[in-house]
């Protein structure tokens, strides 16, 4: 340990009960504050010593998005893991950022309630807010930002700030919660979040169907999503480009109600089958295996057919075979490009050639070109290093981001020293 790092370690240890050496390539230190106040003190030390700071909840998706270009200190939120308040009668719960969603779900279930998000049990509260992660039921309930009614954050200079509150109905002041949702730790540290809750449904059923023709599948998906039968989720699975399309609809409610609604939904889908549990292919929140590239496509549902065709075309051009799943009824799909030989280094020679370029990066680039005329977003959520390098000439991880200049202005206000997850900002700067 150099004299300088010794000084920093001593300063951190003076304000935080849990300071450890970090694991490279993460920062030199990891501090795990046990409270918002402790976290604020840690941030002040970081500010004094101009440390680059990255927040970590469970770390399950820390490698997603653009990696931080510099990290001196990891702030681990695991010691802040309480459900601070569960006001069941108000359908509200206040939770610390390091709590795992599975633990929170267990507490809320005791009163028959939930935060209606389909996210992995080991994901942290702060992580899902900062990443905006959501699964199939986003169709009915929205994403983390839609369920967030209050937030506590620590700014880069150690200032603690709150917005929103404990009541669902609140328009006093600006909604910092919305701003922080999806900000990937670049604006500040989230230490606490308050959510509105929903009652756990008494019963659920899944209605599935399989289609060969894209247009028939698209009509069914739209009909299911827009139906007064009230679908909680309308998911699609297409394991291979050009292949058959599986559609699944989740219905929640009372036992009798779900029974009659699912029978009617089966008719609506045209020969649908009603099953009690999710089909084997039913996705949770988006996920990627080692070496895989995960591309998120967002679109207006009326363009679903064109999006699926564009995916096929881009896959063909790039010579890859992505599996497509996702909330087609809500206008979001995920393409998982397998870890394959022929990505990365071997394709470096054709990188940057318009329309050409094999591999996952080529797929993303070709897809962006194919949907250029639509109101469509193509974002690479995670990819192996070689693929990320090749994305540089093809729009990067995030593609074109409208309103970027305003985002930069917000970033500069919250983090003038650019020390919070530096490099993670939407355009990679």
């Amino acid at each position: 340990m150099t004299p300088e790092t010794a000084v920093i370690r001593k300063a951190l240890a003076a304000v935080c009960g849990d300071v450890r050496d970090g694991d490279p390539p993460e920062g030199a230190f990891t501090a795990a504050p046990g409270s918002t106040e402790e976290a604020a003190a840690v941030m002040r030390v970081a500010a004094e010593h101009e440390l680059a700071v990255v927040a970590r909840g469970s770390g399950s998706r820390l490698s997603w998005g653009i990696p931080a270009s510099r990290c001196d200190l990891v702030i681990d939120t695991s010691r802040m893991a309480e459900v601070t308040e569960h006001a069941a009668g108000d359908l509200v719960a206040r939770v610390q950022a390091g709590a795992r969603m599975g633990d929170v779900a267990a507490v809320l279930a005791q009163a028959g309630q939930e935060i209606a998000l389909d996210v992995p049990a080991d994901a942290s509260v702060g992580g899902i807010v900062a990443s905006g992660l959501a699964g199939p039921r986003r169709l009915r309930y929205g994403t983390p930002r839609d369920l967030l009614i209050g937030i506590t954050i620590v700014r880069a200079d150690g200032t603690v700030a709150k917005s929103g509150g404990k009541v669902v109905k609140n328009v006093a002041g600006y909604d910092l919660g919305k701003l922080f949702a999806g900000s990937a730790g670049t604006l500040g540290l989230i230490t606490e979040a308050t959510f509105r809750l929903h009652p756990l449904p008494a019963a659920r059923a899944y209605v599935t169907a399989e289609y060969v023709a894209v247009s028939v599948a698209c009509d069914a998906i739209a009909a299911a999503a827009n139906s007064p039968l009230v679908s909680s989720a309308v998911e699609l699975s297409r394991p291979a480009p050009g292949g058959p399309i599986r559609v699944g609809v989740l219905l929640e409610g009372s036992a009798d109600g779900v029974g009659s609604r699912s029978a009617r939904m089966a008719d609506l889908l045209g020969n649908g089958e009603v099953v009690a549990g999710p089909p084997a292919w039913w996705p949770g929140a988006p996920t990627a295996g080692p070496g895989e590239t995960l591309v998120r496509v967002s679109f207006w549902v009326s363009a679903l057919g064109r999006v699926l065709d564009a995916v096929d075309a881009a896959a063909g051009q790039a010579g890859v075979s992505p599996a497509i799943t996702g909330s087609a009824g809500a206008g979001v799909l995920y393409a998982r490009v397998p870890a394959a030989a022929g990505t990365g280094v071997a394709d470096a020679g054709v990188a940057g050639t318009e329309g050409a370029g094999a591999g996952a990066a080529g797929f993303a680039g070709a897809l962006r070109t194919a949907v250029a005329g639509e109101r469509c977003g193509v974002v690479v959520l995670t990819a192996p290093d070689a693929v990320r390098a090749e994305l540089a000439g093809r729009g990067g991880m995030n593609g074109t981001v409208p309103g970027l200049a305003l985002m930069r202005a917000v970033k500069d206000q919250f983090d003038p020293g650019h020390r919070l997850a530096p490099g993670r900002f939407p355009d990679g700067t």
Partner: protein
Amino acid sequence: MAQTATTTSEPASAPPTPADAAALAPAMREICGPADVLTDPLQLRTYECDGLTSHRTVPALVVLPESAAEVAAVVRVCARAGVPFVARGSGTGLSGGAVPHAAGVLIVMSRMRRVLEVDPVSRRAVVEPGVTNLSVTQAVAPHGLFYAPDPSSQVVCSVGGNVAENSGGAHCLKHGFTVNHVLGLEIVTPAGELTWLGDGTGVPSGYDLLGAFTGSEGTLGIVTKVVVKLTPVAETVHLVLAAYDSLEAGGRAVSDIIGAGIVPAAIEMMDALAIEAAEAAVHCGYPEGAAAVLLVELDGPAAEVEAELATVHAICERAGAREIRAADDPAQRAGIWAGRKSAFAAVGRLSPAYIVQDGVVPRTALGDVLARIAKLSAETGIRVANVFHAGDGNLHPLVLYNDAVPGEEERAELVSGAILDTCIEYGGSITGEHGVGVDKSRYMPKMFSAADLDTMQLVRCAFDPASLCNPGKVFPTPRLCGEVPGHRRAPLHPVPPAPGGAEIF
């Protein structure tokens, strides 16, 4: 546009005067055409307030642009001249958010009222900000869709205004607020640039500026297009009315309904005074002598609603309802709703003047808070009629007073303020729907710390470093936006001092 030199004695950033704003009229006429630029004092007066008539300020200049390009050009002129500007929708707001700046330009958005696109398969529509809230629903009704956020003023209030206030309405416990139904905004930034926030997919890339902008009360820019999310019309809607001998009993019913895992589309409650007013106004025929009337609306698939209806009926009875009525026919339901919807206007019959409040408390605290309000009323002799969204704890106490009686207005203000203090004390909010505007900015420091307000204003500094966009609203003390290159602002034409020192407009 040539700028005349300043005299050496003029300070680098002198505050703008009404004359400075008025002097922009020729430039504005170039942009909007002469018919859409108002300078006549009588015409300017008609825009001096919004729905909150207690706050009035005559603008120096009014423009009525008809396109996003015109709005952007107007704002650029203001920005170059250092003149503040305020946007106005339908002018129905209840917190004074659209009160003009005396030395500023009022940009009236009501000419921009086209429904540009309806995509029923995607359940999206693109509308201009001047479109009324109800017009959106009417435009998409043929597709079996509606626009869910439904403030009581929906016949006249504008979607742009709804975005500014993050409007709710009776159905927001179940269906959410404007922010949950807006998927894209084209805005003019305070610097006068057109940009999109969000692309209508509902999946943000980068920061959710759309979410931060919604509810920012016109302080971060001007909306020129809105992509709204549409909701399928429910298969069936049932309305239950239950009359009680006390507010407590009604409150018990509400608690038990929530406790049974039911989220009604709406739960509204009115107390005896509000019922009396509504009856006098619209003859809604609510059960006579009731101390509290509860309206519970259930919507959804028929199979679910039938089950919920039975549960709600049983709960209402168990809580001691003296009478229960139910309706599923649209005309009958409208008849029952008429009483609730008329309440604000109806109290005008009971009292020459009144203050509408908009506090929120956790629903479980409603009983206690209503008792506190009753005590305040008894102590001060000021009557308070209560209408509230029982499901989400949003209270609308109507504080009645006779402005002809000396001291009564002051006592009414005291009661009104005490109610808000009580809401804060119980962990609620000073505003559930109407916004902060000018009306409640002085309460912001009671609800938020200095650090909280400072942090929110970082956002304001990012969007509007020159503080020209609806300044003076929401935050009681503006924040200096860091190092801003010196505002050297010369008047476009040298203005001689008015004779007698009177205001020019």
